[in-house]
């Protein structure tokens, strides 16, 4: 019985719901997503959970202590270009920054190997056309001094013109505003006075960072999805209340953790990408619980493969992201995505007789050839079926029937062109995608200064466990873990359910060493005060508030910044707070060099150079009620009879032959079971493919662990 912790994650195809009770029992359910009105799918998934728990829906809602929700409404509005009509007010003379895009074409999210084919490299359709941008006379300089006070007459004209053009949201971003916020604040007040119903987004609230292009895009993107998001959340909140949910609704955010519904309405940009991020934060929580502090997280779905890193129990962060080719500032749990999933298409270059897999994808519609919706090009899923990894009659617990003959025909078309057998071609498709994944994971870990061999790899998402043992062993990770068996396929919802409340506040104040503690500490003081005020609003009692402090530091004259944690919270200074104490300076320096060299290699730091603080940051967290997970009391080496399902012909590329392979029911295996590959473990949500030479174990939490020879 309750109180329950509930996490709901809305994806393109399915809406997942995970319920944790106080004894640590987990209920995971899925319902079809409802793109017209996502709230419907969400309530459906929750209804299924209530049924599973054998109680009326209203009663279930009443017993939820925290409902944390991950939504893609913002992302969808962006991708489908269905956001608000946004007007932008900025410093006069700099109206074009968002169009110039720093001279880049937003190539980050594109196939880099095609970057020189310019006809395919257009900039995005502008999210704010030039006629919705107004410049206003005002100017702040790099010291934060006002050089030109705000011209309010111009500002008023600008606001009125934009409203007259029908703008539903107004974004405000002035140069250097993060050093002096008054001009943006004043214009925001003016908008509220002139057009009270209009959504307002100020750069200092959403992204007070150095660099006007990425700050402007963050502000504009926030405004663009603001009205849509507010409508969605308000509607959802109302419906939940109607069904007796009485607690404040929490929304997952891309920084890892969750924010209140009010904060999400104010800063909807925080919700972008928060779904996959929950997968990483869930992994961080879980890895601390099971005692594996270093984790590479991999989430393989239909169209994309998302990788995250948890090091020493903490997710790795990035501070710049991109969406629809626009780069923007936001502290975010770092996720690298490549276009490789079950739906990735395998295409033969007939001229060179080579085979490529992805990044083009068949998506959910038409989907793989076996869906029978008209796609004839083989996908990774088709290869999995041909090989025997997936039983077409029992895909996702039999919910979707797949047509094996279509998979065979599709793979055959590729095999014929390459002069391979059908099995060889299918194994080739799987191998190419698996090795691509190994390449990207290696790149990401190495770039962050880590060695994959010091990590365990979590495989979740529908398609992940099918392929993870190959890329895991190729990377040389310690083991591959499919966390909590079938829960792995609803892992992001699990992550949402286990999310802490989190607020991140940042301030840029670039200063060279020797540092003045008073200058740094006063900023940290102020950031903490803002965080306290927000938590007060959230109704979080003082004793449940936790703060952590960090500084982004670099070598003066260079670009790379590294985040240095400050467990002390403040810099220790001399009596007058004008200089650091020698001890504090030494500690800071050492932390910087250690982290820098970890990231960039031994000898990369430049000991003679002055240091420079760029950004100061406070992370305020409040742990939600923690799910306690139950652990098996006894371990057993005996595989229960009912777990042995059948055998199936599976082609194993390493053995170069098809072999009758045992199939197990994942739900029936018990803690302590140990099975040698080759075999396949089926759950209702995914299949775990255990290759020859690989051993699978069920641990006390029910995780599937794979190790290699």
């Amino acid at each position: 019985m309750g109180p329950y912790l509930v996490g709901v994650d809305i994806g393109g195809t399915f809406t997942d719901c995970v319920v944790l009770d106080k004894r640590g029992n987990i209920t995971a359910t899925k319902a079809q997503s409802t793109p017209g009105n996502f709230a419907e799918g969400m309530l459906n998934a929750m209804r299924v959970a209530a049924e599973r728990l054998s109680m009326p829906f209203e009663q279930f809602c009443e017993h939820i202590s925290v409902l944390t929700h991950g939504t893609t409404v913002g992302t969808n509005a962006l991708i489908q270009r269905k956001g608000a009509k946004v007007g932008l007010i900025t410093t006069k003379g700099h109206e074009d920054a968002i169009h110039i895009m720093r001279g880049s074409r937003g190539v980050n999210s594109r196939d880099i190997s095609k970057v020189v084919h310019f006809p395919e490299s257009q900039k995005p359709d502008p999210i704010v056309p030039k006629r919705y941008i107004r410049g206003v006379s005002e100017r702040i300089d790099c010291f934060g001094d006002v050089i030109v006070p705000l011209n309010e007459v111009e500002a008023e004209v600008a606001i009125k013109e934009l409203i007259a053009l029908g703008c539903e949201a107004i974004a405000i971003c002035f140069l250097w505003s993060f050093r002096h916020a008054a001009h943006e604040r004043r214009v925001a007040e003016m908008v509220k006075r002139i057009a009270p119903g209009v959504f307002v987004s100020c750069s200092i609230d959403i992204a007070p960072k150095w660099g006007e292009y990425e700050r402007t895009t963050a502000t504009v993107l926030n405004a663009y999805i603001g009205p849509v998001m507010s409508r969605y959340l308000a509607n959802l909140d109302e419906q939940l209340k109607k069904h007796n949910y009485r607690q404040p609704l929490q929304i997952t955010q891309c920084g890892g953790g969750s924010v209140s519904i009010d904060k999400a309405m104010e800063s909807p940009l925080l919700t972008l990408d928060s779904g996959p991020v929950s997968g990483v934060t869930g992994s961080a929580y879980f890895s601390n619980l099971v005692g594996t502090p270093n984790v590479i997280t991999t989430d393989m779905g239909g169209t994309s493969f998302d990788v995250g890193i948890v090091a020493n129990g903490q997710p790795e962060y990035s501070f710049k992201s991109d969406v629809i080719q626009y780069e923007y500032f936001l502290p975010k749990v770092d996720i690298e995505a490549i276009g490789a999933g079950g739906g990735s298409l395998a295409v033969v270059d007939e001229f060179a007789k080579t085979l490529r897999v992805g990044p083009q994808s068949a998506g959910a519609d038409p989907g793989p050839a076996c869906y029978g919706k008209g796609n004839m090009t083989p996908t990774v899923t088709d290869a999995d079926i041909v090989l025997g990894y997936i039983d077409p009659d029992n895909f996702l617990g039999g919910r979707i029937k797949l047509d094996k003959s279509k998979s065979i025909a599709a793979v055959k078309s590729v095999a014929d062109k390459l002069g391979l057998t059908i099995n060889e071609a299918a194994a080739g498709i799987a191998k190419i995608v698996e090795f691509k994944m190994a390449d990207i994971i290696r790149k990401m870990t190495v770039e962050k200064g880590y060695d994959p061999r010091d990590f365990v790899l979590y495989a979740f998402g529908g398609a992940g466990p099918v392929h993870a043992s190959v890329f895991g062993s190729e990377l040389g990770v310690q083991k591959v873990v499919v966390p909590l068996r079938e829960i792995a396929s609803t892992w992001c919802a699990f992550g949402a359910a286990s999310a802490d409340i989190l607020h991140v506040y940042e301030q840029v104040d670039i200063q060279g060493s020797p540092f003045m503690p008073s200058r740094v500490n006063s900023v940290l003081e102020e950031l903490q005060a803002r965080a306290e005020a927000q938590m007060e609003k959230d109704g979080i009692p003082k004793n449940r508030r936790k703060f952590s402090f960090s500084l982004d530091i670099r070598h003066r004259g260079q670009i790379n910044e590294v985040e240095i944690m400050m467990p002390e919270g403040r810099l220790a200074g001399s009596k007058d707070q004008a200089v650091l104490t020698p001890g504090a300076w030494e500690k800071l320096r050492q932390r910087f060099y250690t982290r820098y060299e970890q990231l960039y290699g031994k000898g990369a730091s430049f000991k003679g150079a002055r240091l420079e603080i760029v950004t100061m940051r406070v992370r305020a967290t409040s742990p939600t009620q923690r799910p306690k997970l139950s652990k098996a009391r006894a371990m057993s080496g005996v595989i229960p009879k009912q777990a042995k399902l059948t055998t199936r012909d599976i082609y194993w590329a390493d053995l170069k032959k098809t072999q009758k392979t045992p199939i197990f029911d994942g739900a029936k295996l018990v803690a302590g079971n140990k099975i040698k590959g080759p075999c396949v473990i089926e759950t209702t949500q995914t299949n775990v493919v255990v290759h020859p030479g690989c051993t699978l174990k069920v641990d006390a939490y029910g995780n599937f662990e794979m190790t290699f020879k």
Partner: protein
Amino acid sequence: MPKVSEMKDVKFDGKLHGYVPPKKLNISSKLKLHTKFDKDIDPITYEVIRHSLWHVNEEHGATIQRISGSPVAMYALDLNPSILTADGEFVYFGPYMQYMSGVTDTQVKWILEYRSDNPGIRDGDMFLANDPWVGAAHQQDVMLICPVFWKGELFCWVTNCLHQYDIGGITPSSFCGSAENAFEEGICMPPVKIIENNEIRRDIEEVYLRSSRKPDAVALDFRAQLAGNMTARDRVLALIKRYGPTVVKGVMQKILTNSEKAFLDKLKRLPDGVWRDRTYVECCRPGDRRTHQVMLTLRKKGNRLIFENEGTADQDGAMNATYSGWRGAIMVALNQLLCWDQYFAIGGALRHVEFDPTPGTFTCATFPASVSTAPVQAMEISLYPAYNVLSKMLFIDERMRGDIMCIGGTSQWPATIFRGIDQWGERYGYLLVDPIGGAIGAFSTGDGISNGGQSRTPICRLPNVEHNEQSFPLLILYRKEVIDSGGAGRWRGGLSAETCFIPHRTTSITHDTLSSGNAIPTSTGMMGGYPATVNVYKFKRDTDIKKRIADRDMISDISEVKGTSVELQLRQENFLQHPTDVYAVIWTAAGGFGDPIEREAERVAKDVIENCAVSREAARSIYGVVISENEVFDAEATKALRAERRNARKRKDGPVKILSGKLVAQITDNLAVRKENGSIHTCCAKCSADLGPVRENYKDFAVRADNEITESNPHVGDWKRFIDDRPVFRQFYCPGCGSLLENEIARADSEVLRDIEITSL
């Protein structure tokens, strides 16, 4: 003057003349090359290793950026990593600074020829090199070249190149705009063994750093380059251990042969012919008022492409490039237009490309010419015309037509080189990086990309205004896209931008200019497309900007401030800018494609009313589109105006023959070739008006107008400010229907250029 191919007795060994690798390299027998490879590699293994090799190069580039951390590496991405075979053919080069591609293989081949005997090439060695006659774009581009050995045999090479802040010479930043020769420029080192047995040779490193004004930064960059090579070398070795040397080598060979096959297949679809382009560089040294002609000829003969520069002006002043610089520039366009689908594996194509320049010209200068400014002048002007000649060749094949691209910006770079004491009280000296925002040329299928970056650095970024203002004592009054800067055309060239600033928190800034393409447009259009804006420096002294600031009335254009306009020359040195002096610079944008009066009128109207890309005046004068003062598009008036224009262009002084023979090919947007009574004629692609036999220049049969150069783009001003030779904007119209066939920028005394000569159809 003779071409390289005609100078049989001259040594092209990288001393007096730039190094030209011979067909067969002369390698010491002391060095054992690993040559065995598997021919029969299954497509799966191929794809897995191919992807890994690509990633080796990506990791290599990322490592350099991370460790260097310099703005050069991080924003301008003025670096590039490569993997080459044991004998110096490209397997992959990176997506960063494309100029560096063409100078990499020559460096490696030179090392094989001249270092394999003494001091020898061994496992654990690396060579440092920046000699432009061996192969570097200019001295600032320093390469670190690493042989990868497997069991005592040279398996392959991994290399990288990274632009350095300062490696000496008479000007801080080592762009020496007034140098008379290479002795006044930065240190110049033929490949030297700086890493021996996996250790840095301190003596060599100290020699290298000694000339620099910023030795610490150069030393750190050197470590970044070192780490990059080590990362790449380790990864290649890991692949060899995993799959075996003959398999990895087999994949490398297959990457090359696949790219070669694809290249040959494309050439097979094209007729033989000759394509030419002509441009001009202005001002090779302070005080110079001449124009220096640049010629580029592309010959296609069967499965070979030959590039020549015959007709280019002599080397002079400080504007030159060496053989490898010229070659590297052309390879950028070659890779982007013809090999883009081979993902930076250009080695196979190069087996069929010859570079045959004329030594002593300024795009193929002999030692000791000044070459430190090569990438912003001689190489830009070697690269951009290459887009034109290649595009015209490719246009003939319908499938490749979608790949072509007009000249982009900056086809000449207007440098703002400044120095002084910054707002933090420290000495600084560098250049404004903003022109890296560039512009991408129009395509045959769509408009170019405004501020889409420089095509030669396809993933670069320009600094934010806030980055510039933090680093330098500037208050940037505006940075904006410039209306009408993109060349007009059926498809419009991308716009460029303008940056305007005053000194801030400093008493003054000391400036040098260094530019060309300010009088004569260098981003010419194609097939009737118009040129983009020229480079423009604007400078006003003793303005009322302080009053504007006090009145809270900021400007959007320098024309709004009152002050004394000063005409800056193109290599003006040591002039001061005080806080009341306003400085602005516009950089060249991108050329247009096709006749502007064939652009859909609604698109022009949208460019005026919504995109702020075209002015009302230009819409009328160039596009023939009428938009009223209150910004309403007038379709009727437009139709009438366009008809009138077309009519005026037609031949009035004689009959026009219309051909009806079999269409053989369409060779440009406006020209076709037809078989007429047994002979082959060029004709208008739209009305089939006869333009003479193909063996003659179609332009001689067209209606010709020699217009003032100012008519080519609204931003082109009075040429007399900078040069003595009068330039003209020539237009060639179809005598039958009045279509604009082609434009030509030329010195008034130059003969008409024969841009297309089809020799087999």
